[in-house]
């Protein structure tokens, strides 16, 4: 008998139905996350159309190198997460656990790098409402860019942190043999969540770091 029988919840008729329901549920949740973050992107679009020069100048104050590195780190972590699910699907356990730990580590590296960015931005006085020392013709409207920047990266960082927690929990459970070829739904769902976090950042990167660079 497969391991999934022990995990079958009483409201479901069989494990296929359960997996279908869980997957559909997670994808529906991801769609709500797209709309949740999407408001910030909509606000960005709106404000940038009104103040294109201010946004270009503000973007030049962001650390493009760190931003690009962070993007590379997240993209790699997505690959690691996908490989981890693949491993478990093929019956593996040890390699999968390591892959999940690597994914989590890359997530933590992302957060650390972003922390460095925040520290630098504090020193340069780029945080509206807390420490903002910019002058010049666009100083006031640049604050719109920075508000959006901290809101987007703040919410994103929160989601990364939650993702890291989930990944570590999944790594532990995988290590303990909770999943096998027939049942690994929590792992699949965690990976989907992590990929969404990556997708959000894929759009954040050019909008925050790559505006007005070709001056």
């Amino acid at each position: 008998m497969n391991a999934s029988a022990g995990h079958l919840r009483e409201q479901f008729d069989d494990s296929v139905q359960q997996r279908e329901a869980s997957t559909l549920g997670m994808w529906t949740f991801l769609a709500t996350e797209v709309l949740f973050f999407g408001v910030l992107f909509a606000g960005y679009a709106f404000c940038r159309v009104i103040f294109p020069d201010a946004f270009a100048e503000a973007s030049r104050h962001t650390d493009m190198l760190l931003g690009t590195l962070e993007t590379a780190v997240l993209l790699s972590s997505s690959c690691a997460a996908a490989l981890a699910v693949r491993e478990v699907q093929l019956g593996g356990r040890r390699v999968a656990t390591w892959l999940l730990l690597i994914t989590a580590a890359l997530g933590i590296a992302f957060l650390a790098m972003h922390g460095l960015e925040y520290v630098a931005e504090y020193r340069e006085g780029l945080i509206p409402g807390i420490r903002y020392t910019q002058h010049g013709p666009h100083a006031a409207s640049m604050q719109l860019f920075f508000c959006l920047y901290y809101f987007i990266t703040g919410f994103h960082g929160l989601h990364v942190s939650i993702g890291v927690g989930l990944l570590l929990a999944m790594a532990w459970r995988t290590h303990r043999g909770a999943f096998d070829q027939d049942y690994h739904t929590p792992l699949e769902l965690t990976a989907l969540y992590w990929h969404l976090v990556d997708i959000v950042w894929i759009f954040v990167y050019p909008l925050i770091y790559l505006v007005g660079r070709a001056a």
Partner: protein
Amino acid sequence: MNTVEPAARSYLEEGYGLRSWLGTSDHKRIAILYAVAITFFFFLGGLAAALVRLELVTPAGDVMSAETYNKMFTFHGVVMVWFFLIPSIPATLGNFLLPLMIGARDMAFPRLNLFSWYLYIGGGIFTLACLLLGGVDTGWTFYTPFSTMFSNSRVMLVVVGVFVVGFSSIFTGLNFIVTIHTMRAPGMTWFRLPLFVWSMYAVALVMVLATPVLAMTLALIGLERLFGVGIFDPALGGDPLLFQHFFWFYSHPAVYIMVLPAMGVVSELITAGVRRRIFGYRFMVYAIVGIAVVGFLVWGHHMFVSGQSMYAGIVFSILSFLIAVPSAIKVFNWTATLYKGDITFDAPMLYALGFVGLFMLGGLTGLFLAATALDVSLTDTYFVVAHFHYIMVGGSVMAYLGGIHFWWPKITGRLYSEAWARFAAILMFFGFNLTFFPQYILGWEGMPRRYHEYLPQYQVLNVLSSAGATILAVSYLLPLGYLLWSLRHGARAGANPWRAQGLEWTTPSPPPLHNFARTPQVDGGPYAYEQP
């Protein structure tokens, strides 16, 4: 299809302590948890309305200060919209009936279902804290920059409260979508689903797509208040209309969250009351889905005079006219279902008929407001107030009560007093119209909304409206009385006291824990009554 399952312990007998209720994963018990909670908030919001109507009996602002009045109508709006109307039918009747109607043992995610209720309670606690600590005066619409920069009231608390309750909505919608997609009984194809299930599906889609936008919008208000700076700040170049676009992108579909379930209930009440198939089932389905989708395209009609571009105004106006079409189709089809039918005027049917008439009136006045030229004069007057109360109260609340009465025997296993119920329904219809019809007149005569004092020429109509409100209040207290009384003293109900069609009526009243002893096999469509 209509045989009753052998008697088993009902869901009400599966455990008696508080923990068996607060820790339940049974969708039927969760429905009752919601019913109790929303009833509490309904009367709280009603109290705020009563105080508003009390102030408006005289032209002078002599009952409370302007600031207090602002807090009163804000609280009324916030509580009624987010803590009563939006959860009402979906979280109570939807939660209870959805698995039964599709032949499932429970929702796809029972524990998420309970978590949704706790989110509702959590959001409610923040909102009550806001009230107790001074209230909020921004209107339920939280327009910036007043809400973000200038209001001295408890905006943060209520914003957190609504943010939290929004996630209750999102998870409920998610649960409904997954349940309907994956847990229908064998033979229950999409076009064999009762219209109530279709309306739950549509409302779930709207909840899931619209509410996240509200959540982030509220978060932006909170962040701007916290840090003193944000994207709506005009000094930085922020556009207050940006807030309005975000807010109404959710809040217009929100009104369809409030009315679609009511329409679903009414289809069930009418078919059962006249014992006939619904007229034009497929078009009813298309209308439900059409309303849900087009409902996302009309939000700018709340912003005609806000500074929005004239061209956007034209587009939103045309789309707002368009959405009347599926609504009208539904009204025609309900009427056609009733035409030359053998109508029994039980309380559920009275509520359903009340819905059809009052929704139609409210919907027509919505068309007047959709015309930009008229809206310029009618916006922010009592005409708008009357319009939305006709739909939300004359429509949704009556449908909710009709549904509560109709399924009361199934939910509780008891029969309520039909005589009292008919009396309350008729009193409610009368009280409702006395309260809100004068407000249409006040509106086109120019009385603005959200004012605690008014010009003396408006007094007569205001007195009539407040008198109607008193009658309406009594008519809401009556069901509270006789329904609760029936829990102890009402006659015990059989499985199908209305002799209605539908899988829920094949279970005992009340149903057992897992609803069906064996998963039903569905052979035909809904409303399979003998008469054509």
